[in-house]
């Protein structure tokens, strides 16, 4: 079991061992960085084709099937096309900022992968405030989006950028708030500690993942919704709503820069999915004790893949929101619900001391009711609010 | 090798002076505010440097000061920028030398 589990760690150590001791940490870092970049870049390629295939199936068509066997070489063809396209910079654009924007978007997102634990002993950097690091570098992408939108000197780009920033700011609040119960109950900001806190098993052999608690389940759902909005995916993809504003802040980009944005968006999705797996789905732990022989990184990959599939599924299912509905949904529904979830987590924590046969069902019922009732009421309030005619107070 | 404390302090002093000079020289209120934020950050740098070079780093006083002052900086920016927007609405300008209705 251990051999297969630690195979990548050992490989890294062996490779670093070939170098003198003084540069070994540096080499280990470089190996980790290279591994992450290679794995997730290929993951990006794979996801594009999978997404198109799955969307196609869901929409009752085939999807790409010409390039290579079953169309599997399609990403390669797309990449080649992107790289060979002419890089057009508008005449009136602010050249420097226009150039820097895709870099400013992509670099912080790569950084975010550094703190994710992909398997047992497989974390590139173990900050003891890892979650904070993740959100800190994640927040840098807002500025990049603004740079892209503003520097293009195009009103569609600017509107798209403003929409994207408003959306990202609005959804960053519930995103962070929904992780707070996890941090509180794990008592740590380090992702490794959080994974370790979910690593024990109950009597039935079931893992103590956070998602198996009322607040964890609610937290995961809230987190995933906020993550969808944060990575500008459908049904929250109105920064790029092509029917209204062409392609939002991407309008004036082409060729390699466009590919970088595309990559950045998918990497953002991957990073946030990895965080969801780590925070709520037990990271690289197996769901049952008797399944522990499966290598830890495989578990991570499985959960990761499942969540990515969920995102694709949602994209195929739900229509796009209107901007005021989007903001209302965040501020009137998600944020209060996240705060209530915090209270539920507290109730769960305090009721953990109950010693009785019926304690567990009662705990569950209590906590589930505490979150379900506000959900019902807030939902009703939101529905009545969204049915009123739109007021154009944000449009100048 | 590690950097001595004085280097951090001089960096902070430079940052402070740049912020101050900028706040004094520019006409646009937003830039004046950016200058103020730079000065704020220079002070934060001092706090953290003093904490790091304290013989008792387990006392987190300097760090705590910096954290609180980051929070205050955020609040200050929010209020300052809101004020600028409000003034702009009334006077259609964001140049500080035209904010002079309090003139005696």
């Amino acid at each position, binding site marked *: 079991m251990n051999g297969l589990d630690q195979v990548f760690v050992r490989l890294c150590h062996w490779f670093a061992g070939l170098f003198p001791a003084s540069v070994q940490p540096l080499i280990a870092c470089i190996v980790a960085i290279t591994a992450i970049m290679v794995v997730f870049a290929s993951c990006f390629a794979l996801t594009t084709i999978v997404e198109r295939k799955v969307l196609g199936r869901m929409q009752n068509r085939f999807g790409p099937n010409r390039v290579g066997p079953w169309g599997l070489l399609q990403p390669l063809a797309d990449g080649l096309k992107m790289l060979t396209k002419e890089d057009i910079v508008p005449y009136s654009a*602010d050249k420097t900022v226009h150039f820097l924007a895709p870099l400013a978007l992509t670099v912080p997102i790569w950084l975010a992968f550094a703190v994710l634990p992909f398997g047992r002993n497989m974390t590139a950097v173990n*900050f003891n405030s890892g979650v*904070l*690091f993740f*959100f*800190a*570098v994640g*927040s*840098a992408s807002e*500025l990049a989006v*603004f740079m892209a939108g*503003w520097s293009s000197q195009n009103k569609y780009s600017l509107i798209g950028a*403003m929409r994207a920033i408003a959306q990202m700011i609005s959804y960053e609040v519930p995103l962070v708030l929904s992780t707070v119960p996890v941090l509180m109950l794990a008592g740590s900001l380090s992702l490794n500690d959080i994974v370790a806190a979910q690593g024990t098993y109950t009597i039935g052999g079931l893992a103590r993942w956070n998602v198996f608690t009322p607040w964890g389940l609610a937290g995961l759902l809230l987190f995933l919704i906020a993550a969808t909005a944060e990575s500008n995916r459908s049904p929250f993809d109105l920064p790029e709503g092509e029917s209204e504003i062409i392609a939002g802040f991407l309008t004036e980009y082409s060729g390699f820069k466009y590919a970088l944005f595309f990559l950045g968006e998918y990497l953002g999705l991957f990073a946030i999915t990895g965080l969801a797996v780590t925070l709520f789905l037990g990271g690289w732990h197996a769901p049952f004790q008797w399944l522990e022989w499966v290598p830890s990184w495989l578990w991570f990959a499985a959960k990761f893949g499942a969540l990515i599939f969920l995102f694709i599924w949602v994209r195929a299912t739900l229509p796009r929101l209107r901007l005021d509905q989007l903001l209302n949904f965040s501020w009137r529904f998600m944020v209060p619900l996240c705060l209530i979830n915090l209270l539920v987590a507290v109730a769960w924590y305090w009721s953990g001391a109950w010693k009785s046969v019926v304690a567990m069902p009662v705990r569950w019922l209590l906590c589930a009711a505490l979150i379900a009732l506000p959900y019902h009421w807030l939902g009703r309030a939101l529905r009545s609010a969204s049915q009123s005619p739109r007021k154009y107070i944000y449009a100048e | *090798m590690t*950097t*001595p*404390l*004085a*280097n951090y*302090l001089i960096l902070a*002093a*430079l940052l402070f*002076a*740049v*912020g*101050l*000079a*900028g706040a*004094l*020289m*520019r006409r646009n209120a*937003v*830039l004046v505010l*950016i200058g103020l934020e*730079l000065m704020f950050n220079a002070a934060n*740098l001092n706090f*953290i*440097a003093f*904490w*790091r*070079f304290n013989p008792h*780093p387990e006392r987190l006083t300097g*760090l705590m000061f910096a*954290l*609180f002052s*980051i*929070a*205050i*900086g*955020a*609040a200050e*920016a*929010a*209020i300052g*920028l*809101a*004020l*600028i*927007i409000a003034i702009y609405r009334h006077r259609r300008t964001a140049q500080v*030398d035209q904010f002079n209705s309090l003139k005696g």
Partner: protein
Amino acid sequence: MLNEIAFLLCASIILAGAVGAMMLRNLVHCALCAAGAFAGLAAIYLQLNAEFAGFAQLLVYVGAVAILIVFTILLTRSTELQPGAVHHSSSWWMGLLVGGLVLACLVGSIMSSPSLVRLPSQPASAPVKGIGEQLMSQYIMPLETIGLLLTSALLGAVVIAVREPEKSDPPAR
């Protein structure tokens, strides 16, 4: 050696960002330069082993304050360059003088104090747990006050910046 290089790199980023923020003509460029300076400061904090403060700096200044500044610049239409507009105040030379004077005073006092030229005595770190515990015990009153301050700043900013409604709606019952 590595440390020195990192420090010099960060310091030059910060100073370049700061000077750019204060000197450039285009306000959006200024704001972006300021964001660069803020990010450089976060790096310096990391170098000083203040992880938490560094990430907080990144989150607050690059993630929030810079965005706010950019929004304000756009909302006050400060980017619309008028040809021949004056960007510096009429007495800009006095500002430069005062800035230089302050710098001279500060550097002079730092240089004249021998106790300030010292190296860190031991590797220090600020565990997040320690920060949290101190925040909840020793610094509980400041923490509560900051919470209150931020809430009132939020409300105040909204109240100040919100557009007055054209016609006041009848009060909700």
